[in-house]
Every structure is written in structure tokens, then in C-alpha cells.
């Protein structure tokens, strides 16, 4: 995972609530056994005017110029400003892979769906929750200020916009993994002895839980 410490990035607004992962990554483009190649189909049905073909190159497709991601002023944005309940619906991590591959490193919103939020943290994408009034105000500022940039400082847990500054919450484990670019599996496996002890104790009390799933 790509480490994340600080970011000074352009912001693009996506002013819709309840953006679901089907919209972020439509299912027809998920028929891949790889982790890459999803960025070009991010928000496919909103970004393009035609119907996409799975596996095909998108560079010649007609763009929907009303969609913020296609507008010149937001090119190369690395921060996506979202509304409430972003990432709801399906657990597909492909949605986050597409977001990351497209170039976003930070999502700002009031609330993210639980599974999506976790998936972001595992992929070097930082979802930041800010108060509704801050998010409202950022939507206004982004609209009014072409080229608006924000500075995100993960070690200090701060977002800065000119003179304004807001703190944000993140759990210390996710913060550590993001800063170091770690996946947490090795950290868990350092506790292999504890997992084995748990299994042994549990097997004594509830042996049927350890019956193999097979030959049913």
C-alpha cells in the first residue's frame, strides 16, 4: 500500500448523497481477477455518455462534461468532496481500487458507509469525516474558488484550507498503517500464538464449531 503522510491537493466536488459502490464501480467492469485497471471505469455511467464495454479502452469515449470529474478546472484533483453516506451498498473493494487508481488519495465527507470506509484505509486512501457545516461550507468554497486546494496532514490529523483548519479523527492503528504503508496482516500474524490458544480453548467448549466444512 502506498504510504500517506501529507497531501496538498486540488478538490473536486461530487454533490450527491448516498453515492453507492454500484455507481462508483459498475458491476460490468468488475469481471477481472486483477486489482488494477478499474480507474478508467470509475463512475462510468456518470462520466461517459455511451455505454462502456468491459475490458475495452476508454480513451475515445464521449465524456459527460457536466460531470465534475470531466471539467477542466478539476483535472488532476486528488481530493474528492462527498456528501453523506458515500460508498453505501455493495462491499466491493473494486470501488476503492478505482478511486485510488484514478488518483484520489483523500475523501472528505460527513459520513462514509462502514465497509467502504474500511476498504479505503486498506488501500492508502484516507476518508476524512468532518462536521456537516464544514462540508457544506467546503462545497460553497470549491464552487466559488477555482483551483481551491486543501492541505491534509495525517500525522497532525488536520485539514487546512487557507486560514481555516479542522481536526479529524482516525484510529491510531489505521493511522500507523497509512503512514508506514503497511498492510496489517503481518501485524495480526505476530499474534499467531494467541489465535492458536483461542482456538484450543474454544474447541474444548464448542467442538462442533471446528467440524470441517466439507462433504455436506
Amino acid at each position, binding site marked *: 500500500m502506498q504510504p500517506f503522510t501529507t497531501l496538498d491537493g486540488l478538490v473536486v466536488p461530487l454533490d450527491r448523497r448516498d453515492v453507492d459502490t454500484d455507481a462508483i464501480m459498475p458491476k460490468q467492469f468488475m469481471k477481472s*481477477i486483477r*486489482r488494477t485497471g478499474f480507474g478508467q471505469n470509475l463512475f462510468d455511467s456518470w462520466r461517459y455518455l455511451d455505454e462502456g464495454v468491459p475490458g475495452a479502452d476508454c480513451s475515445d469515449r464521449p465524456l459527460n462534461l457536466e460531470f465534475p470529474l470531466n471539467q477542466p478546472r478539476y483535472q488532476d484533483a486528488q481530493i474528492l468532496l462527498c456528501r453523506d453516506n458515500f460508498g453505501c451498498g455493495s462491499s466491493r*473493494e473494486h470501488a476503492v481500487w478505482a478511486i485510488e487508481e484514478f488518483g484520489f488519495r483523500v475523501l472528505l465527507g460527513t459520513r462514509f458507509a462502514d465497509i467502504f470506509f474500511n476498504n479505503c484505509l486498506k488501500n492508502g486512501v484516507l476518508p476524512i469525516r468532518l462536521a456537516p457545516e464544514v462540508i457544506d461550507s467546503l462545497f460553497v468554497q470549491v464552487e466559488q474558488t477555482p483551483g481551491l486546494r486543501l492541505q491534509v496532514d495525517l500525522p497532525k490529523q488536520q485539514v487546512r484550507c487557507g486560514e481555516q483548519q479542522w481536526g479529524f479523527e482516525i484510529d491510531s492503528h489505521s493511522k500507523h498503517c497509512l503512514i508506514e504503508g503497511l498492510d496489517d496482516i503481518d501485524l495480526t500474524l505476530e499474534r499467531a500464538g494467541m489465535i492458536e490458544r483461542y*482456538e484450543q480453548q474454544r474447541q474444548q467448549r464448542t467442538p462442533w464449531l471446528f467440524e470441517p466444512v466439507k462433504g*455436506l
Partner: protein
Amino acid sequence: MAEAKTLFQKLWDSHRVVDLDDGEALIYIDRHLVNEVTSPQAFESLARRGRKPWRVDAVLAAADHNVPTLMRSQGISDELALVQVRALANNCQALGITHYGMDDARQGILHVIAPELGVTQPGMTIACGDSHTSTHGAFGALAFGIGTSDIEHLLASQCLRMRPLKTLRITVSGTLGKGVSSKDLALGIIARLGASGGAGHAIEFAGDTIESLSMEARMTLCNMSIEAGARIGLVGVDQTTIDYLKGRAAVPSGDAWEQAQVYWREFVSDEGARFDRELAISAESIQPFVTWGTSPDMSCTIDGRVPHPEDVEPLRRESYTRALYYMDLCPGMAISDIRLDKVFIGSCTNARIEDLRIAASVVKGQRVAPGIRQALVVPGSGMVKAQAEAEGLDRIFVDAGFEWRDPGCSMCLGMNEDRLQPGERCASTSNRNFEGRQGAGGRSHLVSPAMAAAAAIAGHFVDVRNC
């Protein structure tokens, strides 16, 4: 006296391997269900990093999302889908994971087959790379969807890092009216809570209405918890749970059955247990629901009308307007005037035997309306299909003009050939009415199996209570 605990707390405590910094815990997972769409990258990464699976005998795999529901003997014609389905079979074979392929009689939607095989049991933790894993909470199990990174984490360690959720108890009392099902209850609750109202929470469904529901109906309710934003739905264990489990393939027998029963019955919330939030619902207030929009909380009762965006709070107005534009509906239109192109009876929400029995009872002796281009019945599993055929339900559907298909997720998400064409409108027993969910440009209305069946006969929505 010991502290009164919620069902969630009991499940959490009994699976906590170790408390970690910052309020997280390492939680042991008893069962891992694996599908073909969200797992390949996890298997690939596991192998690439030289990690060994911790406990393959806790894993059950089946291809469900991508499989065709027609002419299976000819294999999968979609090359991209075939690659995923093959990858799952190969990964499972290489690691020794139990896998039910498309030609296996036990194949089906994972959230249908795990319960019917008895793989899902009370007091367990169950995870799967699919958000509708909440379904299994109907058994008093802690069950939730995870992403692909967590699939790898789980394969490697049999554990997940988690933070305890807040608890929300929804107490439903009274009797659901005739023709009103747990799907309507689910849609009614989602309308009340909103699509994100349950975020960060495990929802426990309680009360005498819930106690009177079958396991199938409870599964429908827990399945839809995620549509209110709650990753976990729960129902406490009772005699209905135990009766459902008895004799199922993976359920313990003999002395172990007796021992297991005693243990399972602990998985209820204690009297006096405290929940972070409570909500009370009267069953009598629930009527057949139909969604009109592009989020599961955009619904109204069958006797209602499509809402006017100006009647809602400003924050929602724009999403209402956008939803009505996408759905091509006018404010003020009667729900019963919405004409349909397709009908889909299926999905992990509503493709169990009880759902098919109810739908069949509505269509029996009638014909699908001429305006309906396609009416599909897709059983949730091979076992549901066989049972339905033994009861003659397939004949009822086919005689009425429905297509009787092989099991899979099918048109719920349109990853296989079963999908809506742009502009087509569908009455669907599935769980999501998102833009493009059932096919790019398709328009989905979520309803119960009875309401979908009645709509197929009428060609538009009708109140099944009058059928």
C-alpha cells in the same frame, strides 16, 4: 448478578482473541464464505506473499454472482465471467477449500446455501466478501460483509481487526397483515431509518412480530439491514431457530446436538440489557411497500403516490429530483399506475422456498400480463429449486408464463446475462434499486415476492391484499 448483555455483546465477547490498542479487537471468525467476484485478488495476494491459509476447513465457496441461469450444460459463454468462475474453482482446489461449482446440486447463492446446509449456526461469526452477509444474523450469528483486503486477512489469520459496533434494537409488535411480509417490514424500517440511519450499528430485531416470523422471513429482514447502513442484523435464538437447524447437513448430531442447543440458546439479549438506540414499530402500520427511487429508503406504500420533491427537506430535494428523473416518474403519480417491463423473483433477499411458495400462490392459475417482456423466477439454490419442483411450484410459474431458471444472483445485480436493458422497468424482489443496479439504465422497484407476483399478472403494481 452478572451484567445484562446484548446479543451483540455476547457474540463479540465470545470471539475476542485479544483487545488491541485504540478500542479495536482481534475477532475470531468461525465461517468464511467465498464467492468468485471479490476473492480472486485476495487469493493472488496470499500466494504472492507466501502466506498460508490459516484454516481452510472453515471456508465454503461457491460461484453465485456471475453464473448463467440458463443452459448451464453449455458452460459460461461470457469469457470474463468464465475467468472468475474458473479462478475460484482453481484457488479452492489448490488450497483444499470446499467449493460448489455450477454443476453441483448444492450450488446457489452463498447466503441461501450456508443456512440451508446448516453451515450457518447460532453463536458463530461469519464473514464474506459480500455486504448481504448480514442475512446470517437471523440465526443469532455475528455476520457481516468485508472487502477483498479483509478476505485475505481472514484467509491468512482466521481473524479480523474490528471495532465494536453500537447497538440499535428495533422492537416490532403486533401482527403483520395478510399479504404483508418481512420484506415490507424491512422496506418500512429502511424508510423510517434512512439509507444511512443504521451506519455504525448492529441492528437487533426483537418483539413478538419477529418471534412469529419464520427463519426465511428473518433472513430477509437481516439481509436488508445493510440497506439501512447497518453492516449487521441480528435476531435472538429461539425454538424457531433450533427447529430450522435440526437435521441439516452441517449441524451437529447426537450428544453434540444436545450440547450445541444449550449453547445456542445463550445467544439472546439478556433482560435489561442496554442498547445505544431503540426504535419501536407497530406491525399493523406496515403495508406492502414499493420503492419509487434509486435508494432503498425511497419508498411508499402501495396505496401511495410518487412524492413531490418540494415536500421534502432541502437536503433531500435534489436526490429526490434526480431519482425521479432517472426513474422517469412524475410526482403525484399513483404507485399502482406504474407499468412494468420485467419482473424478477430471486436474490439472497427473497429466493428461498417460502418466498417461492408465496409467489406461486399468487400466480396460480393466472397468466403474466401481455405487456411484461420477461418474468423470471430464479431459485436461491439448487436445493430450493429441487424442493420447489417437488412441490410443483415450477409448473405453476411456467404455466403462468414465468421463466424457471437455475440458481444464482442473476438479475439482482445483473452480472450475468440476466439484466435490464436501458429504460426497462422492473418489479424486483431483490435488495437494491440503485441506478444501473440491474443493468445500465434499468429502473428497479423493490417489492416483496407476493407483490412482484401480483405485478407480473397485472402488468403494473397492485395491492396483493386485493388479489
